[in-house]
């Protein structure tokens, strides 16, 4: 499909717009609808769109599957690491009040960290599943 000029132009134009919208949804989950899951899925849709137009090999040069494998585990580690960090500071598991001097600031920091972890994991897993299905079809 990369020989079609209109599709190529639209893909190059839309990819940063979709990625920016994904980051907006990720970080505004506190004040409006949104959060980690939606942001991860929208960012992976941007990469799938790019892969449909420009081919699988180009997309695998943009983001190699080895990096995806590491990112999927890193997301869960960030989430569980926040919980273990609060336990090491003397409180319960995932008790965000201890992360900062002010309890409200601690809650904000805790929610931000775990939403980032959730977003990274969901994005990597969706892209791993798509790459697995698409690589199987290549002769």
């Amino acid at each position, binding site marked *: 499909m990369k020989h079609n000029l209109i599709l190529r132009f639209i893909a190059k134009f839309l990819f940063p717009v979709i990625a920016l919208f994904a980051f907006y949804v990720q970080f505004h989950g506190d*004040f409006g609808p949104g959060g980690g899951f939606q942001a991860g899925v929208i960012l992976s849709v941007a990469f799938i769109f790019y892969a449909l137009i420009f081919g699988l090999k180009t997309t695998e040069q943009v983001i190699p599957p080895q990096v995806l494998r590491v990112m999927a585990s890193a997301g869960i580690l960030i989430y569980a690491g926040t919980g273990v960090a609060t336990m090491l500071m003397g409180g319960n598991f995932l008790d965000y009040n201890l992360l900062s001097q002010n309890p409200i600031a601690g809650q904000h920091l805790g929610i931000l960290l775990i939403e980032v972890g959730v977003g990274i994991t969901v994005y990597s897993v969706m892209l791993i*599943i798509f790459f697995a*299905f698409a690589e*199987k079809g290549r002769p």
Partner: protein
Amino acid sequence: MIDIIIGHYNYWVVIFLMMAGFYTVISQGNLIKKIAGLNIFQTSVFLLYISIGYVNEGTTPIIAEGYTKYANPLPHVLILTAIVVGVSTIALGLALIVRIKEAYGTIEEDEIHDQDMSL
């Protein structure tokens, strides 16, 4: 009688959708159609839960000035988790269908059963 219908028609249509998905799962032979029916079943169960949490003249549960009545946020939280678990199940089911096609050569349930019986 009429206010029973107005108060409950939502649940009846959702139950009809659940039964349509259930019928697709147990009676259609093609495996991809079974997975589509399973997903219809899941989505209509989500509709049932969100209908329970709805409040007349309420709004989305985001605290803002000037609003006093909010919808119930607890079903929303449950259904968010359930949607993500549902997509995980669908992805694994579809991967299993690809492997079944490699092993048996077909994805119709009757032919797979015949091949198993004739071994």
